[in-house]
Each structure stands twice: as C-alpha cells, then as structure tokens.
C-alpha cells in the first residue's frame, strides 16, 4: 500500500510541480521527517533547488516543519493526505460553483492555485479576470460580499501566522481569528487598480481553503443521495432536513448526532398536523457510512464474481466466523461450487482465513 501511495504521490507532484519538487517530495515521503541537509545529500540536487522545492511545498501546505534541537534548523515532513487532496480540487471548485455561483467559483480557484492569498489582492485579481471575460463588470463591492460570505460559511479560513522573529517560525492561530471577517477597504482597492503601488491594509493576513468544510458538504451529499436511491425521494428530503437541523447542536464530525426533535422538521415542512407525542431522531453518521461501505463492497463482489459468491460473502459477513461446511449448507450451494467460490474469494483477499 505504502509503495503504491508513494507512486501516486510522486505522479501528482510531478504533474503539478515538475521533476525537482517531485524528487524532494518522494524523498520526504520515504524517509519521513528529515532536515534540509539530509535531503540535499540524498537527492543529489543543488542546495538552491532543494530550498526552492521546499519553499514551494511549504507554500502549498504539503510540507510542514518543526524546529530541530538546534533552533536554527528545521525538520521537514510531507503531508501525504494533503497531496492526495490535490486530486479533489476540481470537485471543490465545482461544489462552490453550484452553491454560490461563478464569482465565488473564481475566488476559490484563484486561492487553490496560489494556496493562500490576501483578501484585497484576491478580489482585485478576480475582478480583473471577470472584466476580461465578460462585458458587464461585477463591482468590487459585490466581490467583497462574496468573499465575506465564503469566510462566514467557513469555506475559507485564515492562514496561521507567526509571532516573534524566530529562525524557524512557529505558525499559530487561535480559533476566533479563523473566521474573523477581514477589514477590506474598497477605496484602497479602487485606487490600487489605477496605480502600480500595492500596499493594502490586510498585507499580512492570508486566507486559505478549509478542506474540512468541503468534506462535510460532500459527506452530506453522499448521505442524502444514498437515502434517495435506497428508499425514495421523500426519505432523501427528510434526511437532508435532519442534517440541516443537526448542525445547530452537533459537532460536524461527531459519530452520532445529538437528538433532533421531529417537531422542528415538521415546522420546516410547514405541516400543521402537530401530534402530542413528538419524539426525536438521531443520525448515526458513522454507522450510515459503514453501511454504505458494506453495500459498495457487496456490489464489488457481485460484479467481480456472481450472485452466488455474493451470497457466500454476505453469509460470512453475517456470521463473522464460519466453517466451510456450514457455508455449503447455509448458502444452499452445491459443495464443489461453494468450495470453488470461497477459494476464489479467499485468493483475491475478499475473505480471510483466521488460522493462517
């Protein structure tokens, strides 16, 4: 798995950052946390190139660093998850396009391309791009509103910054500042358009994409569509409302939501048939996904083999441990065929023999 992961990572890096960065990234993936000089020695690249690649990787938040014992030197490590997320960038952009429209899409796209940027420069750039493409220009004020709505909806967060002047900066941010709406001076932006001097109020305040928020949206969408497919559209709609209400009193990534009163959902549906006994519902978020995963696995077995193999697979899942004789009896499949199928399943690692 790890070797495969390494190959994928190096392909992703090579496509986006070129062979030099790819070499440094792959080295960091293979050897974990290492200081600069080790990377230089073992990649056999010139020091300036190694430095530049590390800068790029840090800029795109794919590499993180912590100070070594010697405080002037840092240890670098590659964040493999973040590299994989680069494959999802189109999905993030598309999600915003659907939810907030084209201008917001462009904001997210620009930020993803640069990893982080100041609000003022970002708005100016998007304004410039929009005025190039279309005849009717979008006013800067409207773009500012769009940006702020992305911040308040937590799709954008502030980048951690460093305080003090250490050789290895200690990047921190407190939770309040993450979603604090920035001070953007429209007058300054208009002035900046005509002049070449750029000096904005928010010079050192960078904004970046909050991947977690996107994943939350994607998860909700998966749950809703799964319910719609499995039951019907009403069920999908109901779960959607349930999820919407859930966020009022539950942490987004909790395994199980806190109870949501049915009355609230009825209120939402504007149905006047109020019953005395309301009751409340919980969403088992984690359980729902475990269920989805099982269904996908069963579907895989069904597609790869046949319905009989799927039957054996479900039987083993149900019983957890089962003797091969029992499989033949309970699945009602002739002995020879059952043996052949369970052997095939075993060989392709769909089943496991606990004794070996």
């Amino acid at each position: 798995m790890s070797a495969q992961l390494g190959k994928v990572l190096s392909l992703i890096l090579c496509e986006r950052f070129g062979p030099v960065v790819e070499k440094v990234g792959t080295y960091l993936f293979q050897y974990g946390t290492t200081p600069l000089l080790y990377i230089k020695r073992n990649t056999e690249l010139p020091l300036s190139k190694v430095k530049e690649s590390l800068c790029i990787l840090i800029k795109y938040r794919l590499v993180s660093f912590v100070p070594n014992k010697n405080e002037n030197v840092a240890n670098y490590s590659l964040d493999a998850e973040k590299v994989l997320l680069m494959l999802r960038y189109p999905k993030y952009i598309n999600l915003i396009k659907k939810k907030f429209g084209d201008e917001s899409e462009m904001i997210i796209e620009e930020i993803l391309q640069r990893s982080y940027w100041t609000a003022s420069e970002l708005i100016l750039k998007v304004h410039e791009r929009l005025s190039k493409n279309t005849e009717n220009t979008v006013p800067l004020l409207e773009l500012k509103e769009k940006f702020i709505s992305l911040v308040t909806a937590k799709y954008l967060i502030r980048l951690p910054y460093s305080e003090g002047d250490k050789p290895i900066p200690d990047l921190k941010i407190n939770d309040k500042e993450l979603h604090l709406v920035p001070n953007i001076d429209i007058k300054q932006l208009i002035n900046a358009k005509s002049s070449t001097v750029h000096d904005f109020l928010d010079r050192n305040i960078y904004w970046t994409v909050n991947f977690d928020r996107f994943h939350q949206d994607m998860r909700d969408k998966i749950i809703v569509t799964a319910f719609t497919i499995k039951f019907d559209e009403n069920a999908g709609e109901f779960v959607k409302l349930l999820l919407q209400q859930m966020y009022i009193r539950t942490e987004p990534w909790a395994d199980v939501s806190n109870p949501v009163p049915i009355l609230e959902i009825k209120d939402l549906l504007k149905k006047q048939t109020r019953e005395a006994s309301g009751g409340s519902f919980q969403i088992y978020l984690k359980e729902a996904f475990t269920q989805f995963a099982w269904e996908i696995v069963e579907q895989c077995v069904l597609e790869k083999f046949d319905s009989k193999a799927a039957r054996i697979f479900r039987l083993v899942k149900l019983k957890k441990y089962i003797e091969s004789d029992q499989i033949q009896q309970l699945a009602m499949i002739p002995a020879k065929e059952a043996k052949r199928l369970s052997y095939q399943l075993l060989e392709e690692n769909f089943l496991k023999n606990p004794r070996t």
Partner: protein
Amino acid sequence: MSGRGRGGRGGRGGTAKSFNKEQLNAMGVTGNEVLPGPVSQPPALYPMLERRPVPLNASLELDYLLILRQDFIDHMQLSGSYLNMPENKKNQPEQAIDKLVAQLPSAKEKYDWTLFPSELRPKMLAKRVKKKVVKEVNLEERLTLLEKLEEKSDEADMTANTEIKVEDEEVEEVEAVDEDEEMDDGTDYANNYFDNGEDYEDEDDNLEDGPIY
C-alpha cells in the same frame, strides 16, 4: 553429444518409452487421458481479461471537472512553482537564458518569509536587498553633506564629525550583512570540502613548467 540428443528435442516424444505404466500412473498420467494437441499459435500477448471494468458514464459534470483539472495543472506548469531539472553543463547557452529568465521578477515565486524557516531563504535575495538600501542612504546623506559643506564652510569641523558618524554606521551595516550570510549557511556542513584532485594535478603541471634558469 549422444546424451544431448536424447535429453533435448527428441527425448519426449521419441519411440523409446522412458517410463512404464505404473510410474506414469504414480505421476497422475493415466492411459485414457488425451494429451493436448500441438500448439500452432503463439501465446496471447496479454493474459485474458476475466472481468471487464464498468464503463465510465460520460456526463457534462464530469467533463467540466476534467476541464477544471486540466486548467489547474496548466496554471501550475506555467507558474513559478514548476521546477525543471537543472540542465547539463553542456547546454551552456540555454542555461544562460534560464538564468536571465530566473532573474525576471515574474518568473520567481515571491514568498512572505515570515512564514518560512530562515534557512530556506536564498542567499542572493538577502544580499541584494540590503546592499541597495545601504547605497541609497549613502547617496542622500552624502549629497546633503556636500551641500552643507558648500553653503557653510565655516562649520567645517561640525560636518566632518557627522561624516565620520555616517561612515561608522556604514561599517555596522556591512557587518550585519555578513552575519546574515553566515546564518544562511547554518552549519559548515553545507560547505563543500570535497576535493576531486584536479587542482593537485594543475599544481604539478606548474611545477614541471617550473622555474626558468
């Protein structure tokens, strides 16, 4: 030679029976089992596909996602974040162009260095910025000093004193620059002490040419 003939091509299908029936039975070859006929075709280039993957459903959304992906990759490859392998020394002219391109402000990424470890800062940057600042200060102050000298020759002693002060500052700034360079090096592991021995031979040559009597 004779041994080779038996064990090689003719050995297996030959007339002489090498095993009797009991031995064949023990190995699992029974009498009434038909032997496979001669293989007249070459084996397939690839093993047979047992199961075909599910076809991708093309949709407008998928196309749009693909376009977004390609846009992003194109942007990255044109940006300063895309590094190519350092060129070989044989391609000198190309390298010179690369160096020129690299000096353009747009071709290099600009970083906010407060967010990066200081050891990653390129040395060139630190030097250039500081030297420029020093020079500008000198020019302005010198000019004003000269003006003052012209205007007020009476107060010559006073200006001379200030001049000395200015020079002192200059020295301090130069020292600061030096310190920075050392910081960039970090430890002296970065220095290359490796001697490939070429210089040694050069010296030898010089000796041979040697002193002229």
